Each structure stands twice: as C-alpha cells, then as structure tokens.
C-alpha cells in the first residue's frame, strides 16, 4: 500500500518588517484533515520537509466552524477560511499565504484592525437609550428580518476586501463589509433614525464613490452576504440624501 502524505507550502515572515520566505512541510495522510488540523500536526513536530527543525507556524484560528472569521488566509491563492478548507478537496502542495491587504504580524497572522475601525466610521450600532428594561423592540416584518439576518452574519473576516481591487494601503476605501453593516442598521426601525449619520460617512472620503463595481466581494464572501445588493442600496440611499441635502440647504 502506498503511503500517502499531505504537502504544504507556507509563506512565512518573522515580523512585520521581515522578509517573507517559504517553508515546505509534509505530514502523513489522514482522511478528514482540513488546513487547520494539518497545521496542528506540523506544530507537534515542527520540521520542514527536508528535516530541518523550525518554529511552529503562527496563524490565527478560534471557532473552526466558520463563524468567528479568524482563520482567513490565502489557500492555493484563494481567500477563505482555513477551517473549511478540506484537504481532500485541495490540490497539493497546499499553498498557504497571509492576506495581502493587511499588515502581516507574523507568518499567516495579519492585523485586520482597519476593518473594525471602519465599523466606527459608519456608526454600525443602534444608539439605545440604555440597558434597563424598556420593553420589547419594534416589530419587524419577517421579510425585513430575513434580509437583515443575511447582512448581520458578516464576521469581519476580510475576504471581501482582500478580493477588492479598490481596497489597499494607499486607498481609504471603507470596503464592502462596512457598507453592508450600514445597510443593516439603516434597515432596522430604530437604526433608521440615525440613517443620515451613516450615509454622511459613506458620502465622504473612502466612501461608496470609491467602489469600482468589480463585484469580487460578493463572490468570495463565505457567508453569501448580498454585498453588491447592499452597495447598490447605499448608492440609492446616498443619492436620495444628496438630493435632499441640496433642497433643504
């Protein structure tokens, strides 16, 4: 019987300033492996394919169920979560690289704080009066809930902005994820009361006008969030607001 194995090529970098380099690893084949469980095998015996001892690969992961968004990386050139990247469905050697739109911390770990800052820019929250008991919230039609829920599953994983040609370190573009959140909060009956603030943010620098309509975002979103619909919706809302602003100035 042939002894099968799993081969891995990992792009590594020791620090944010470091020069990237590649390591190859090989672990014995087992069915049901995903990229994460292979990386776990590697750290139990951190040695490159040619037998040189090395440091365990650094990567981010938490839930391993594709709901936390941590383990996003490039797997064979495609941006996705490593936990749902099943080895049996991947070509080998499996090539792992960090996302390219964020500063590398180390190896496959990047700093996505720009995405969380974007959520502040669009004021992605409901400004509630307080946490004391004020009774139930507003009624929401099931249809509205279904669209809102689809948007609210965004886990800030970074796939959409990694795939976006407009999003990079010399542009201020806010990216599809935050635009989707603005739609979500503008949709909610209470959130709609502050719709203007969110639209103002998206009408400014790095806002909706910077979207180049490449539509890559919606194709790579692991949660199938209707991002291009959201971008279209914000386009419509900002146009109406611009007109109103003109009339009422």
């Amino acid at each position, binding site marked *: 019987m042939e002894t099968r194995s799993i081969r891995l090529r990992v792009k590594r970098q020791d620090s944010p300033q470091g020069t990237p380099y590649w390591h190859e690893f090989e672990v014995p084949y087992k069915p049901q492996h995903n990229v994460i469980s292979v990386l776990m095998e590697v750290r139990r015996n951190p040695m490159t394919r040619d037998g040189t001892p090395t440091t365990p690969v650094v990567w*981010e992961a*938490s839930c391993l169920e594709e709901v936390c968004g941590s383990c996003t990386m490039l797997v064979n050139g495609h941006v996705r979560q490593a936990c749902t990247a099943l080895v049996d469905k991947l070509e080998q050697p499996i090539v792992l690289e960090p996302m390219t739109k964020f500063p590398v911390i180390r190896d496959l770990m990047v700093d996505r704080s720009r995405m969380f800052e974007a959520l502040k820019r669009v004021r992605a929250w409901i400004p509630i009066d307080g946490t004391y008991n*004020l009774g139930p919230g507003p009624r929401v039609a099931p249809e509205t809930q279904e669209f809102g*829920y689809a948007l609210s599953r965004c886990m800030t994983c970074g796939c959409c902005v990694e795939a976006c040609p407009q999003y990079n370190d010399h542009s201020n573009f806010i990216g599809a994820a935050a635009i989707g959140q603005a739609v979500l909060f503008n949709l909610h009956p209470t959130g709609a009361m502050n719709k203007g603030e969110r639209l103002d943010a998206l009408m400014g620098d790095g806002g909706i006008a910077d979207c180049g309509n490449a539509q890559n975002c919606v194709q790579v979103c692991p949660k199938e969030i209707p991002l291009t619909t959201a971008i279209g919706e914000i386009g419509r809302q900002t146009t109406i607001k611009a007109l109103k602003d003109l009339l009422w100035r």
Partner: protein
Amino acid sequence: MPDERLIVVGGGLAGLMTTIKIAELGVPADLFSVVPVKRSHSVCAQGGINAAVNWKGEGDTPQEHFDDTIYGGDFLANQPPVQAMCEAGPGIVFLLDRMGVMFNRTQEGLLDFRRFGGTKHHRTAFAGATTGQQLLYALDEQVRRFEAAGLVRKFETWEFLSIVKDGQGHCRGITALNQRSMEIHAFPAGAVMLATGGPGMVFGKSTNSMVNTGTAAGAAYQQGAYYANGEFIQVHPTAIPGEDKLRLISESVRGEGGRVWTYRNGKPWYFLEDMYPAYGNLVPRDIATRAIFKVVFEMGLGVNGEPMVFLDVTHIDAKLLDRKLGGVLEIYEKFMGADPRKVPMKIFPGMHYSMGGLWVDYDHMTNIPGLFAAGEVDYQYHGANRLGANSLLSCLYSGQLAGPTMVHYARGHTADGATAAALEHERQRQEDAFAKLRKMDGKENVYVLAKELGEWMTANVTVIRDNDKLRATDNKLRELKERWSNVGLHDRTAWANQELSFIKQMWNMLELARVIALGALRRDESRGAHYKPAFPERNDAKWLKTTKAQWSSDGPELSYEDVDTSLIKPRPRKYDVDKTAA
C-alpha cells in the same frame, strides 16, 4: 475622588455585558481579550436564548423556567440566583431586541420562540441557528459605541496572566501579556472581572473554540480563587467528529422536529422517543448523551458498527429548515459534504460546556475580594447539567448583575499607597516566570502533551466515570506535569510567539484538569452529567453539596458546601414521564 478604572477580562457575551453596564454608569473600563472581541467563543452558540414570555399561550412563566432549570440541573444549583436569572430572562431578550438583534419573527412581526431540551414550552428566542454570533455582535456594537465615546479601552490580543493582590489579599489589577510584542504589563483596577469562558481545550477536542483553554481560571485558582463543581462537564449529544475539533449540531435541530435514530433489526429505531416518551428527542443533554452511549457501546447498534447515530431532519420542509436552522445545516454540509435536508446527519456526543467554574457569591464576586467572575467561567446557574439555551442567558444575566456590583465594590474599596508596589511586584514575578519558560530546552513538545491530556480527559472524565480510571487519570496528569518541566521551546523569537504563550497556558490547563478529575473521583454518586455506574443513584443525603477546590502545592484540596434549596424541594429527576409539580 474620581472612579478608578475597572478591568474586564474576556470579550464574550458575559464580558461585553459587564463592560456595557460599567460604562453606562460612567465608569471607564479596560477590556482585555486574547482575540478581537468579535471573534470570542460566544459566536459558536447556535440555538437560542431562553426567556419565559409565554408568547405562544402555553402558560409558561419564569417560575416554570426556574423549575425546569433546577430540575434539569439535578438540584445542584443554588436556587435564589437561578430564580432571579429566570425572572430577568424576558427583559434581557427585549433588550437584545432593542439592540437590533435579527431574531426570527412571527407573521405579526413579533419575536418567534422555539422549543429546546428539558422543557415543554416554546421558550427559546433565536436568530436562525447562529444566535450566539448575533447576540455577540449586538453587544460588540454597543461596546464599540462606548469605545468611540472614550469610556472603554480595548486591549485585544492581550493575554491575562495573573491577578494582582495587595497586602490584604484584595484584587487590585492584573498582569497581561501582549501577544505580539510579548511584553508583560501590570494594569491597576478598582475591581477585576474574569469572563474568560470554559476549559474545553483541557479535553483536547471539544465543541469549544481554540481560545477556550481555561488558562485564566486556572491562574486565578492557583492564586487562591476557589473552583467549584469542576467535575460537572457537559457532553453534548449531537456533534460531528473532526480531526481538529468536534463541531456542534445544535439542540435546536431537535427543537424544530429533528429525530435521533439508529438501525435495530434492519429498521429505524427512534430510541429517545422510545426510552423517554414524555420528552422524546428533547430530553436534556446528559440524558440524550447517555442514551446514545448505551445504544452504541452496550447494544452495539452504532451506524455501520461505528460510534455514531443519525440525527434526521429530512422529513421537515427544506424552506423552513433554511429559515430556522440554516447556519447549522451549512456547517454540516461544508464539513461533511452531505446535504442534511436530504440525508440524515451522522452525529456523536462531544465535550461541550463546563457547569463548574470559579466559585462566586450571589454578587458574582469570588472569594478574593475585588475579583469577580461571570459567564461560563463561573459555576452559578446550571447545577449538575445545563439546559440548552440557558448559557446565553446566564452569560448576559451574570454580566448585567456584576457590572454594577463591581462599580459599587470599587467605590467602597479605593486603592491605597501600597498598590503601585504590589503591581510592580506581580509584574516582576511574571517576567521571571517567562524568563524561565524562554530557556526551556527539554525534549517534550508542548502540543503533544496537550493532545495526550485531551485524550485522557475525554476517555475517562466525560460521560461514564469509574474510580480506577479516574485515579489512573490523575496519575497521568501528574506525569504530564513532570513532563511539562521537560518541554523544549522551538520558537526562541521575541515576537508573536504562540508556542511560548501556550507552554504557560498548558500548565494552567493541567492544574484545572486535576480539579476536574479529582472532583469526579471523590463524588461517589450519579447526578446530572456526572455518572458513575458503580454509584448509579443520586445521593442527596451525602452529595447535595457544591464541590470547592482550593489550590495547594500538593494538589487540589476539596471541601463541600451546602446547596441553597430553599425555594424548590429536591425531588427525583425523570424524563420518561412528565415532570411532577414542584
């Protein structure tokens, strides 16, 4: 005198709720988390959150929720806090609704509720099958609002190392490790909240996230905090085994009509419905898990002779499934490559939750003044077995309660001149400890030790417990502690060194593992999730007691405290017949 800052460690539901409550009182808070808080383990909760609003006209009441919870927990929980939590349930769900959580709705636009295990009522509000994620995001958004307003400072990717105690033994702050620069700092605080979640990684593979090592609780325990009821570990009946973890398939699948079965004599046998006609597939988790173990291991009826049974939703309309269970069916589909709308899912029990945790009083303060605990890391609400959809509630309720009690405590206990020295002393102690870790050059690989730990704990300290095996497990744990001293650090760099962090965490995991194993060894009865075939009955005369573990250099010292059963008299717990009145 201005208020001192307060510290919250952990950015899951309990930690975020605590933070919001503190900030809402105008008190500044520092929030520490090993991951960006939006990635905390609360995202994994699927099925929903309980609140007895009686919006289906079934006569549900918070009192009935209280009774179900106490009965489901086999009477081990102190009753007054559980009653208060159940009464607060509706208000908490309404608050989440006001925060904009996209809960599923009825045709009238009201919140929809579904059934869960251990109750006969539709009591569980839900957002598809990713309720925990939706709740966490709502709270994350509120905290971001306070962060933007300058009241909350976030320290994300910082790891809690220890509490700082002053000369009187009061908690005055923490030390924490920056996971990127690997620097250790001490942070002062008027009071400290640990909301750091459960210890799933002690069992290697579980439904928990990778961050759920229990390291913070283990560290606090070694600094004198009592750890209570550690032996009560929930094994969820329906998970899918994987190489890296066990993935949860929510109880809500059964709440929406999913049926558990296996083949017997060539025909489907719906064994839960058969064994427990009154509750059927919605028996509590400990009961369902033991039934699956019986069918698979005693009767040899696992599917294809393997340890698995079917969880079947193929008889339910696919559109309804997508609307109410989409998120969880998607997980099955992505990882198993089969469509559960068309073929029954193959599942097996997996370690899921710790009912035990840091001992706290009814204000959520540990035995160390100024140190609080909330969420899964505390032991307060679930007794010997937690009911489904009560964990999100207990996280939010405990955070909601503890935020204001922390503020109140801090105002009455302001720091004195000796605090600065205590902070520096503890920081130096941690520096010294890490200096030693950095020099470790033995032969053992820490990740291999972690794997062995998980295998032993899963084999011997989960569903079926035997005293000889528990003793052998404790011997193994002591062996692992010795081998830990012989760990070699492969990564000698000073930047983002995950291996170095994990060596430290592993020690704390071993300390907690001993608490869990020895607590189980000592408790010679069967109650809730703790089941010993040699002692098959619940023994209230001897064991209606909370286990309290106190750290000593020779291992945990166990003592026992009476349970407050002042509101509901303990009665036998059975699910083959309808629950008798309280």
